């Protein structure tokens, strides 16, 4: 591993398998009566979240605590950020107190890369703007492998708001690195130009994307990032692009349905699909803890580049 986890773009297929295999061992810790190992004793991890988050922040905090790290959550809403402090100044002040790792979520793409250049602490990207959300893609891959063994050769359809989705970018990079046959689908206004260069097939027909798919991954309509009218109404969006029981029937009989959360029920996914037998949405959340434990553990070690140099 490198010093920081900024995105899937920096990882090789071997790095990805290393994280997934380590996560498999980490999961066992969460099944014990005493869910704690002393591995990161004495390490300090700061969770710096500039955007609202329930799942990712809780998941990181549980992972840190299960590894015995000292964790600290900076609630930006109650911090000096409101007094006008810049990200760099906030980071340098936290850095002055010698943490070992900073887990950062920020609304601007590239915020983690900025901190990576100026901080000695390891930086873990917990979502930066519309760029990457690497631990989400890793936990998605872990969940897929649990059900399908190998990712290579699977038809995987990612459907929804492609334009604003960091989950899409990280997943597209990861799944194509591991050899999946990846389709993406969304309304033309929400398909970013040039997305083909990620090695994905693009369609605006949900039926085409879903037909014979092994995995269907639904993306949230990110209304908080939408300035302008990308489609006429949420109701019309659901009629054309929403995942319904009828559409699921076009996929393989053993298809799994995924969603990174938070879900908009009745917008991108029908409730009976989200809660139905093909849904692995809550498994994704459970696996998130094990995958984040693996990332924290692997980043706490030495830096390969430096060892080789």
């Amino acid at each position, binding site marked *: 591993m490198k010093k920081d986890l900024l995105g899937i773009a920096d990882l090789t297929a071997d790095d990805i398998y290393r994280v997934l295999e380590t996560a498999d*061992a980490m999961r*066992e810790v969460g099944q014990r009566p005493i869910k704690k190992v*002393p591995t990161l004793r004495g390490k300090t991890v700061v969770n710096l979240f500039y955007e609202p988050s329930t799942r990712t922040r809780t998941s990181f905090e549980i992972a840190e605590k299960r590894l015995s790290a000292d964790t600290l959550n900076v609630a930006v809403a109650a911090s000096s950020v409101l007094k006008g402090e810049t990200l760099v100044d906030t980071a340098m002040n936290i850095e002055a107190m010698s943490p070992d790792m900073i887990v950062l979520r920020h609304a601007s793409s590239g915020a983690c890369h900025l901190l990576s250049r100026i901080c000695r602490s390891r930086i873990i990207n917990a979502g930066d703007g519309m760029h990457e959300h690497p631990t989400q893609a890793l936990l998605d891959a872990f969940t897929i492998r649990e059900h399908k063994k190998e990712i290579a050769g699977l038809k995987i359809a990612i459907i929804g708001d492609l334009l604003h989705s960091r989950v899409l970018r990280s997943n597209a990079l990861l799944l194509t690195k591991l050899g999946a046959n990846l389709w993406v689908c969304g309304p033309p206004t929400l398909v970013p130009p040039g997305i083909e260069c990620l090695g994905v097939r693009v369609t605006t027909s949900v039926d085409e994307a879903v037909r014979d798919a092994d995995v269907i991954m639904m993306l949230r309509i990110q209304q908080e990032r939408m300035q302008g009218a990308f489609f006429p109404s949420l109701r019309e969006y659901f009629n054309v692009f929403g995942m319904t029981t009828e559409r699921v029937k076009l996929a393989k009989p053993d298809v799994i349905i995924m969603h990174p959360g938070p879900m908009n029920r009745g917008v991108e996914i029908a409730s009976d699909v989200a809660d139905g037998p093909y849904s692995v949405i809550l498994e994704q959340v459970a696996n998130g803890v094990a995958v984040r434990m693996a990332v924290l553990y692997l980043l706490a070690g030495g830096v*390969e580049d430096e*060892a080789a140099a």
Partner: protein
Amino acid sequence: MPVVLDADRMVRSLARIAHEILERNSGPGNIAELALVGIRTRGVPLARRIAKSIHEIAHHETPTGALDITLYRDDLSSHTLGPQPLVRKTEIPFSIDGKLILLVDDVLYTGRTIRAALDALIDFGRPKAIQLVVLVDRGHRELPIKADYVGKNIPTASTQNVQVHLMEIDGRDEVEVLP
């Protein structure tokens, strides 16, 4: 002479250890409390072999588990160069509460692995007792730890390297001392 224990003598050492375990824990009800936990990697097949010997002698199935101690190592933070050691799965499919745990490893050297294994085991419950089984004791302890059952004591220099090869992992049964 690099080979210090060949396949025949390894089989006999393990059979003797199985007898010693049964002899030492022969009180009423004791055999039902026995459980074997092998330390990954090579302690695991050794624990299975001892379980098989105990079964042949006493017709009793001893529950057997596998313990990975990587997350309990005392040298993780000193790995400032190079990547973290690989973590593998711990599989202890039974409750260790009130059990008489036989902890199994291939080589006993500094004692640091056993220290980590004791910490790990205690996180799984409160065993009645823990006894230590090793195939080879090579000396040079750095902690106050002693084996209860030893396949063979091999005096070594700390510069030497003791390598245990097992059929299940390496395709042959042999212990070598390399300079």
